[in-house]
């Protein structure tokens, strides 16, 4: 009868809560979690493998910017990259020295599938645990190689799922 439902409902008054109070409690991400990319600039050999494999074409190859101060908007970034790097055919001739181009990832399009990390021969491109990428201006979503090389701060979340007697909760 309805009693069974009422009893089951009341039983839950003593069970522990499931919610993670996000801003103050943050979940600890799995070791393999695919967050924002980290680019190790020296080891990159500009082979454009990540550029070719990226399904949503979120990666464009750009030169490192000589002078740091000047803030470049994406349009500017796009023209700045030489014409050849945008087409997706392989670099022209092996013997000609490859242009030092590095991946610039636009997080408007990136789906975090991690194909670029798998395909990178010198695995200079890996993924950190940072997932808080929201910005006020759309242009800031485009991360230049320099921005990608900064290692995100390690204020890792510490809360994981804990099976207690009073049900599941998120504990430190």
């Amino acid at each position, binding site marked *: 009868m*309805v009693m069974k439902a*009422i009893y089951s*409902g009341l039983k839950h008054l003593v069970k522990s*809560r499931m*919610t993670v109070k996000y801003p103050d409690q943050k979940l600890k991400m799995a070791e393999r979690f695919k967050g924002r990319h980290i680019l190790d600039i020296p080891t990159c050999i500009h082979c454009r493998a990540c550029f070719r494999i990226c399904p949503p074409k979120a990666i464009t190859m750009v030169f490192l910017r000589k002078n740091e101060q000047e803030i470049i908007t994406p349009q500017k970034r796009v023209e700045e990259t030489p014409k050849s790097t945008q087409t997706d055919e392989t670099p022209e001739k092996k013997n000609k020295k490859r242009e030092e181009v590095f991946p610039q990832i636009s997080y408007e399009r990136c789906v975090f599938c991690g194909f670029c990390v798998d395909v990178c021969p010198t695995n200079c491109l890996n993924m950190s645990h940072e997932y808080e990428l929201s910005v006020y201006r759309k242009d800031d979503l485009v991360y230049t190689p320099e921005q990608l090389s900064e290692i995100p701060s390690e204020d890792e979340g510490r809360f994981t799922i804990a099976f207690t007697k009073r049900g599941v909760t998120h504990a430190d």
Partner: protein
Amino acid sequence: MNIVNNIENVLNNIQIVELRQLLLFVFGVLRSELFFKIIFFPGIFTILITVSELIWLERKFLAKMQLRVGPQYAGRIGGILQPIADFVKLLFKEAIIPEKADKKFFQIVPILLVVLATTTLTVIPISETAVISNLDVSLLFTFAILAIFPILTLLAGWASNSKYPFLGGIRALFQQVSYEVPLWFSTLGVVLLAESLNFVSIVKAQSSFWYILLLPLGALTFIVSMIAELERIPFDVPEAESEIVMGWMTEYSGMNFGLIMLSLYTKLYFASAMFTALFLGGWLGPSILSPSFWFLTKTLIVALIIIMLRGVLPRVRLSDLLNIGWRRLLIFSLISIVWAVMVKLFLLGVF
């Protein structure tokens, strides 16, 4: 008391006659005991406070049952001021009035709903003395007021002039009309035992036995049909989100919606208050605590039961709703009247 005296003689020597009389009259009203009752104790102020705390209680209680947190930040201690924050927010929200809506009625309905919901509370005795208007037909008075609500909900549905509210309004009409009949029959048993329609004397008559012990069936039908009257979850048909969005409240926004919510929860407070007065012996309780405290705790417990049902039961179909209303509840209430007569003759004859 000297403040009162010197205000009085200040008023007395005002030269302009009319002004003096007016101020004296206003001062008289301010000091009168009835004014205190209306504005403060059982009146507007307590109603607003208890109603907003009922809203908070419902959200927090359901949250705990659903393993989540509920309101938390407003007022720091567990979101206690969340309802007030909501009303202030709704004050600034734009009250959109649909262009094809019947403007006059569209705006009158929320105001009328709140007014009617609070007038019903004037007759409920919180304690022996604290009742605003001690009509000797107070139960009849609540009958009359409660009968107006279906008309208002239909008017709201009709005035919004759009499909969902229209359907919701019609359904609300079916439901509330068909549930008022078992509601009044179940109170007849109480009237029979207490031999009076006045709440105060009903409560007094329960000094020996609470009527819930004598008329359990009557109490049950009262609660069930009261939930249907309030359009709460098991009988939530007029406001069924998945079918007709918000029923007759769909087109209301901003403070109109706020007023309607206020009136809904005032009706919840009124329903549980009426149940305690009729069946749980209003303010009667061991005298170590003040009578109004007893009344409020009993009302709170009844309100908690009604709220708990919201977390536990799904919504009933319209056809079953009417079946339960007309077939089962009506019979139960008739049985409870016969039961009351039997109790009256045999049991009370003995005492």
